[in-house]
């Protein structure tokens, strides 16, 4: 097992080095002139030259790369054009709001996805299966930014059931900043009314964000459950007289766990991508809305910094997913 962990660790470190090289290449080597992009379309040649000089773009590429790496290691990503603050600070400020959204959506998608995928496998080829599979195809195919608008149209504009967007109602003073999670912070402050308000504001964004990733989980759970259910030990378990629920929940689901965890790791990428749209539409003050604004303002430094940070986080999470294999399935570390 130790050998497996070391091997995965080395592979992950190589990957992280690759990610840094690639973001550098994206920022410096592609045909677009970063100085021109940062200066904006209306800047004169002098302004562009000044930026080239400040960024060290006239230095040889390997020197530029070393500067880039040392800046990244120090957590220095330069300044954002929009907020006029260091990008690293911005990322830390906006991160908790996104994390709250992504974690909750991830949880919802796993719980519902596993439940529905199991139902589809258990009632394979019957109407419940057809309905769940249809829902999964639909969930994979609908653009989430569109679904978000439809939800607003239905639940806010037509029925007035849920708030339009934001994390709290307008004019409501937020609780003291402790974790950055609005739900937890309001509980710490002992304000149940704020907690309820925060939850109400999360219903639509979480639902829209969870749908595509739930659809993928449904498909994976269904396929791997079908595979497990056809094996001999399931028949043995049934023959021993174990209740059907026990057979499905413990014997089958337990053995269908690996693909589910793999897809959960991959889904985090989907959730982070989705957050860009969802936060923009629901006016959620997180990293996603920050990214969308950076893109529309051509805030080049910010885009590249977010790309790097998100890719690093994503790589680390998938490393943890790999490690969990070794814990969950002893056969993995023997291979």
């Amino acid at each position: 097992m130790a050998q497996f962990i070391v091997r995965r660790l080395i592979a992950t470190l190589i990957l992280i080095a690759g990610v840094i090289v690639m973001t550098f290449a994206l920022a410096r080597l592609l045909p677009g002139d970063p100085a021109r992009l940062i200066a904006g379309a209306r800047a004169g040649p002098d302004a562009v030259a000044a930026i080239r000089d400040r960024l060290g773009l006239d230095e040889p590429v390997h020197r530029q790369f070393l500067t880039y790496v040392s800046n990244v290691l120090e957590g220095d990503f330069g300044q954002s054009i929009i907020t006029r603050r260091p990008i690293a600070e911005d990322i830390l400020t906006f991160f908790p709001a996104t994390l709250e959204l992504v974690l909750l959506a991830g949880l919802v998608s796993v719980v519902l996805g596993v439940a529905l995928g199991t139902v589809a496998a258990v009632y394979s080829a019957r109407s419940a299966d057809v309905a769940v599979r249809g829902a999964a195809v639909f969930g994979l195919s609908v653009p989430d930014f569109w679904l978000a608008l439809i939800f607003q149209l239905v639940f806010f504009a037509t029925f007035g059931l849920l708030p339009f967007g934001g994390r709290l109602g307008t004019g409501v003073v937020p609780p003291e900043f402790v974790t950055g999670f609005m739900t937890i912070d309001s509980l710490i402050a002992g304000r149940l009314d704020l907690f309820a308000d925060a939850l109400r504001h999360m219903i639509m964004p979480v639902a829209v964000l969870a749908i595509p990733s739930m659809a993928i989980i449904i498909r994976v759970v269904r396929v791997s459950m079908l595979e497990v259910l056809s094996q001999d030990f399931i028949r043995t378990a049934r023959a021993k007289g174990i209740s059907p629920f026990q057979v499905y929940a413990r014997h089958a689901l337990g053995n269908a766990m690996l693909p589910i965890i793999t897809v959960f790791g991959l889904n985090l990428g989907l959730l982070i991508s989705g957050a860009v749209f969802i936060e923009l539409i629901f006016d959620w003050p997180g990293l996603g809305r920050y990214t969308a604004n950076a893109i529309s303002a051509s805030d080049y430094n910010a885009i590249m910094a977010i790309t790097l940070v998100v890719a690093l986080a994503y790589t680390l999470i998938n490393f943890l997913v790999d490690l969990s294999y070794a814990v969950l399935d002893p056969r993995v570390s023997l291979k």
Partner: protein
Amino acid sequence: MSAVVHPSPAGRRPAIARMAAFAGAVRGFATSSGQATIACSIVAFVLLAGIASFTAFALDTHLTTFDPLKMDILSRLQPPSAEHWMGTDKIGRDMLARVLAGSWISLTVSLAVLLVASVVGTAIGLIAGYVGGLVDETLMRVTDLFLAFPALILAAAIAASFGGGMVPTTIALAAVFWPWYARLIRSRVLSLKEQEFVAAARAMGASPARIVFVTLLPMVWPLVIVQATTDVGFVILAASGLSFLGLGAQPPTPEWGALIFDSLTHQPTAWWLAVFPGGAIALVAVGFNLLGDSLRDHLDPALGAAEAGV
């Protein structure tokens, strides 16, 4: 799809016989299951819409009310009516004409993206799988690198580096889609190359290049077709997402994602501006998703969903 072509006397219109056999195979597939029938109907409808809108554009014979760019400021922001089935936008352009024109744009973009992605991915997968060793290791580490970024974030960063627009969007999406083809083909080649027909080809003195492109390629390309069919929907989703963020199609191009972004300032009152273009994206994506799934079942049920990815 091993349709039996009836032996015909030499030189007697073999092309027509081939087309008839192909049409028969398509018909056989389209009626093989309810899902396939639904999928084929949706896709046929979308292709027709795309071809019709392209023809109208190419011949420049827009009907007067059917020009996606024709403004009519007096009838701006009209809800759907008998005259404008999908309403009009903020400067009075007909939404139905714009959504239809968007079908052509989306289909071309996804065709271009998938062509590049599948050719690059298949080539890399074939080489990595067949050659093995250090070549395999290097190519697969590069593949992993592209998968280390959340797809949309990487696509957005690449498109932004090129300054946005349709061509950068196409490159950016090809860059995030090819690794899946490389992985899929490699894993297939790894199992194929142990089989006897490859050993036979090698024994007959075939060069590695010949084995890869003449012996192995025909064995893997049905996989590529199935995967690409499923991916059409995902590429259209991703392309419209980039346009929604302002990176893809630029105004006044009636790309679906751009149309929805344009409508944001008029939400929720002018609901038709967002509902129809988004519905079009969803319809196309559902159609190609179902088509890919049924094609997989129809061509080779043994392939299974697990091997071809989700």
